[in-house]
């Protein structure tokens, strides 16, 4: 069986600078990929290319054999790739229920959980009818994930989802992501600096430096990789 | 041909002086200051009534510039200051101010055009086959002098450097302890002075009327987008480019569509760079 998501030699330049410089990897359904690396190493830009936020300068991303990159964010969503952002973004004064309904409406027949179930999964059951802006910042981050899940994704891209969460909250989030991956078969890419959160969650880890892949492997392999320790983990 | 170019440069100087005032305000406050048209109109009328009352032209002109500066600062203190956190509200407030200022002029001075006389009305400069009336030459000189003065202010004084810092990054400037309110007022003060200069420089060629600045303002907005919102030298260069383009288009294609040539320029820029030229000239003054 071929992989669900195939990333082939993706390059993204801004002006003359290559933010992502030839990244390739594959990801299967239900798998969680951790993406780590120092600030400015190109993680968020890579997520952007996967999610259609940016067009790749070269290379391509295929989902189930079909090209998914370079066609804009909404087409990426309709192909089944959804993302969250580093900064919390919800629709201002909208209630979570309204926002989920909109995202759900764009699902176009792809399978997925009902909105209530998504909210419950992320512990947001009580927050459904409250305006997004009135939630705590941790809840807002979860709400953003709920929104992404409501589009019925096959690939979920999370950009620093655990920022500002304490240990318990992060563990609950990790459990929720695991369930989504396991029960819905969603492939997940998680960018985070919080190793206590990320390492137990990820099936494989990809380390980026200066736009390129420095190393990849299981969390255990990465933890012992000297190059990674020297360039990144050691400083952390 | 050279005559057309000279006319283009004259228009360009006019656009530049008005556009620099707009872009300065945009740079520090992100406000599309339509009220600038009203500032120009009130300056011109002040000069006109002072000189009609018998004041020598130079004094009347100073009075006009002072009035422009005062009105401009008032628009900031009374209106723009209160929407600093809501950029979406800026266009409505700007339009409201423009309506108020223009109609105050209409109320005070009536709708018919007035003629502003200058001591250099009948001067005519000739150089080869090119001629330039004294009024237009004076505008070019005033534009160059005031823009140079502005350049010195921005680059050589601490006030100017502070203003550039604010335009660069508002939050960072506030953290550095730059008094923001003073900077806002200062930007409007400078814009008002430049508006006053524009008014006294071009009112003598045209007419003093409540709507005298409408077309110039539109062209100046093209210039501001052309040069990058917030960029002073962009506005100067953009002004000259637009002046020459409009001058050429008007002379060789159709004078009726003079301003349309500027708009075409603007549209092509917005199509190529939806964020204006700002994406390269990120908010900066000077």
């Amino acid at each position, binding site marked *: 069986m071929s992989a669900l998501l195939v990333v082939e030699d993706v390059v993204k330049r801004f002006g003359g600078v290559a933010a992502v410089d030839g990244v390739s990897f594959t990801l299967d359904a239900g798998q969680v990929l951790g993406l780590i690396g120092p600030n400015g190493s190109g993680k968020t830009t890579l997520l952007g290319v996967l999610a259609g936020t940016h067009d790749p300068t070269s290379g391509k991303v295929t989902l189930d054999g079909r090209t998914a990159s370079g066609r804009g964010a909404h087409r990426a969503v309709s192909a089944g790739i959804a993302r969250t952002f580093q900064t919390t973004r919800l629709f201002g004064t909208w209630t979570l229920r309204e926002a989920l309904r909109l995202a759900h409406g764009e699902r176009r027949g792809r399978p997925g959980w009902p909105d209530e179930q998504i909210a419950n999964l992320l512990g947001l059951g009580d927050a459904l009818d409250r305006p997004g802006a009135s939630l705590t910042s941790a809840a807002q981050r979860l709400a953003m994930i709920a929104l992404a899940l409501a589009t019925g994704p096959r690939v979920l891209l999370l950009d620093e989802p655990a920022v500002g969460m304490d240990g318990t909250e992060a563990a609950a989030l990790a459990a929720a992501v695991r369930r989504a991956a396991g029960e819905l078969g969603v492939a997940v890419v998680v960018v985070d600096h919080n190793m206590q959160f990320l390492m137990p969650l990820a099936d494989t880890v990809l380390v980026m430096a200066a736009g390129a892949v420095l190393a990849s492997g299981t969390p255990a392999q990465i933890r012992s990789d000297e190059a990674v320790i020297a360039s990144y983990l050691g400083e952390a | 041909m050279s*005559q*057309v170019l000279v*006319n283009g440069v*004259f*228009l360009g100087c006019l656009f530049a002086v008005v556009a620099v005032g707009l872009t300065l305000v945009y740079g520090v406050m992100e406000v599309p200051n339509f009220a600038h048209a009203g500032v120009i109109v009130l300056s011109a009328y002040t000069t006109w009534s002072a000189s009609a009352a018998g004041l020598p032209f130079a004094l009347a002109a100073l009075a006009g510039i002072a009035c422009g500066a005062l009105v401009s600062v008032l628009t900031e203190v009374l209106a723009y200051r209160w929407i600093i956190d809501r950029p979406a509200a800026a266009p409505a407030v700007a339009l409201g101010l423009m309506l108020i200022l223009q109609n105050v002029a209409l109320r005070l001075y*009536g*709708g*018919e*055009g*007035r*003629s*502003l*006389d200058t001591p250099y*009305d*009948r001067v*005519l400069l*000739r150089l080869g086959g090119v*001629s330039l*009336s*004294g*009024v*237009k030459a004076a505008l070019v000189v005033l534009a160059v002098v005031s823009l140079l003065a502005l350049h010195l202010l921005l680059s050589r004084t601490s006030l100017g450097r502070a203003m550039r810092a604010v335009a660069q990054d508002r939050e960072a400037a506030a953290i550095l302890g730059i008094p923001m309110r003073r900077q806002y007022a200062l930007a409007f003060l400078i814009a008002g002075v430049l508006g006053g200069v524009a008014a006294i420089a071009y009112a003598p*060629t*045209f*007419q003093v009327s409540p709507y*005298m600045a409408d*077309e110039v303002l539109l062209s100046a907005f093209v210039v501001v987008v052309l040069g990058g919102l917030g960029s002073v030298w962009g506005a100067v260069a953009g002004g000259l480019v637009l002046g020459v383009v409009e*001058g050429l288009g*008007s*002379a060789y294609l159709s*004078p*009726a569509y*003079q301003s349309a040539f500027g708009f075409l320029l603007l549209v092509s820029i917005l199509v190529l760079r939806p964020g204006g030229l700002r994406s390269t000239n990120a908010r900066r003054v000077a």
Partner: protein
Amino acid sequence: MRSRSAAALVAAAVLTATTACGSPSGSPDSDVVKVGAILSLSGIYATLGPAQKNALQMGVEELNRTGFTVGGRKRTLEISYADDRSDAATTGVTALRELVQSQKVPVIAYGLGSDTYVPQLQRQPVPMVNMLDSSYPGILGLSDHLFLTRGASPTYVPGCLYYAKRKLGTTSISVITAKGEPYGEGLTQLVTKSAQAEGVRIAANSEFPLSSTDYSNAISAAVAAKPDAVYLSSVTAVILPVLKQLRQSGYTGPVIHSAGVNPNQAKAILGAQYDSIMKDNYDCAGTLPTTSQDPAAQAFAKDYQQRYDEYPQDLTMWAHDFPFIVAAAMTKADTVSDPAKIEQALKEIDVPQGTVSGWLPGDGGRLFTDRNARTASEVTAWCPGQDTLRSAMVFDVKDDAVVDPTFPQETCG
């Protein structure tokens, strides 16, 4: 709930607003007869409207001193003035509807915007008497309800070229036109035609958009052709700023136009230098009250100048005569309220008593021939240092050619 209360709110607001300013409408047969006047009291043509209003006021007062008799009763006239703000299509049409629908006036005097009134006239006909618009092609073809109390451009433009050629020695002329301004565009057509007839070469034909404030391209094109004279095609408020920039550009030759510029306007629009700017200026249009040979016109000119401290333009005498024309038509029609009958009567009346314009009567002594009443034409020249104009040539035009020209002595004041 909310939409319903909001709907009520809108309704209430609109109703209060619209009923707040109810206007009384005249009863159909009162002793005070109300007629309408739509004038350009403000805006770009504000050089015209206020003078017309002054003159109308004088005419009404003179008429009402004796009054006029309709249906056996003594009547006086009252004019309801409306300002079209020099924008007939927007404000003027609204004013017309207000006058016709709400105030129910049976006849209306007006100045500009004839074509824009035509659809409304189709819906609700009322005779409209134009006291100003001589543009070419003429306004009378637009609607049967329009009347014109002045000679149209073709009755005076040939005189411009006739005079320029013979008295100024002009063999070539540059024309500068306000594009989009119908009066000016018509003048340019006529000047071109007359120049051809007189054997005067058109050195250059340049134009500027009406809304523009910088005329340098049009002016340099006109001057570069080195003409003997420059003709400026449009109305006073439009051509005077052009004239100023023309003189600033260094042109010193003669300037001809048909705008009816008077000294007050020259001073107001041109500023302190007006006298030197106006030097060598020639204006060909209808006869002026001040330079007219007609004693009634001269007396009116004197009264007007005394009362308003303003030089009377040609259009003031036509405006002055409007109340007398209306009174005569109502008397003849024997109604003060039926627009159709009054319209018919206008076509049949003779030159009324009390008028001062020196009307040239048509067949059978009728005032209007083909809904047009006219006076003689005249070329006037600016008198430097004296704030006044002198008559340079009085003439009439038949078949596009100048006839019966007379040349008064070339003296000012």
